[in-house]
């Protein structure tokens, strides 16, 4: 699975996700990626793209829940992503990338690794694979 989230100069947010699915998948199985609100979501508060075990990500309506925690729960983007990863999902199930309307970027996972990268207008840049990098 691949995904991207962005904030532009006009303050608009967007998210996109694309996948080949799960190896050896059967019977028209569909994961979280094309389910708006689960694997992909954006509004005026946050943009989120997910990756991992699709069924688990769907059960938590994950991407929308992250945005809702920020909008209605008073969570920071980091706290919202961490809440999903630590309280709603089990270890080894998912990773999220997210950006909020202030340009805060969060890339976190409860798996050993996630291919990920980010950059912002201040020149903050990250390209990482494993969690402990």
């Amino acid at each position, binding site marked *: 699975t691949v995904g991207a989230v962005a904030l532009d100069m006009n303050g608009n947010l967007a998210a996109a996700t694309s996948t080949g699915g799960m190896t050896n998948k059967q019977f*028209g199985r569909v994961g979280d990626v094309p389910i708006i609100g689960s694997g992909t979501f954006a509004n005026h508060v946050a943009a989120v793209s997910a990756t991992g075990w699709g069924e688990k990500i769907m059960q938590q309506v994950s991407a929308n829940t992250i945005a809702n925690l920020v909008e209605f729960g008073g969570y920071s983007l980091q706290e919202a992503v961490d809440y999903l990863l630590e309280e709603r999902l089990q270890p080894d199930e998912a990773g999220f990338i997210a950006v909020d309307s202030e340009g805060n970027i969060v890339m976190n996972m409860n798996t050993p690794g996630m291919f990920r990268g980010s950059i912002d207008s201040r020149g903050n840049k990250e390209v990482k694979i494993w969690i402990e990098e």
Partner: protein
Amino acid sequence: VEWAVALHGGAGTISQDLPDSVRQQYYDGLEQAVRTGQIVLREGGSALDAVEQVVKNLEDNPLFNAGRGSVFTSEGTHELDAAIMDGSTMEAGALTGLTTVKNPVSLARIVMEQSNHIFFSGQGAEQYADQTDVQRVENDHFFTQNRYEQWQRAQEQSHLYSDTYRSIYESVNADKFG
């Protein structure tokens, strides 16, 4: 922060024993995708353009499980899913089960911007693609040897599972990735 972009190429158990050359390929691929988003946003492009271009870049990179380099279904084919959402309008487009669209994310954007609907599946998604000018490819465009060998191993394991019964969760847990 005037603009920002983040991307992922899948999460899971990624071996720390990757050969340096392969490890570098992943870093280079991620760097290239980051640059793609940077260029769009730095030049004043929209967040929507940035996420589409970044995901297209990753779909075209055979290292990642999307577009070229996608995993195999149990039937030995490739089925692709994609979605895009514009936070400024709450509009969205999504597709599942595509087999001949080179860059599913671009078709998702067309669904969002040009159709009255949000989500097309399978044959209907392919028929919708017929009405657009998105680039089409044969299904084997998405083939990579690495994914093929991964699929063969999964097939062998699935036969073992059927003999000794494992739950779908155990089976998925053993081989989930992205």
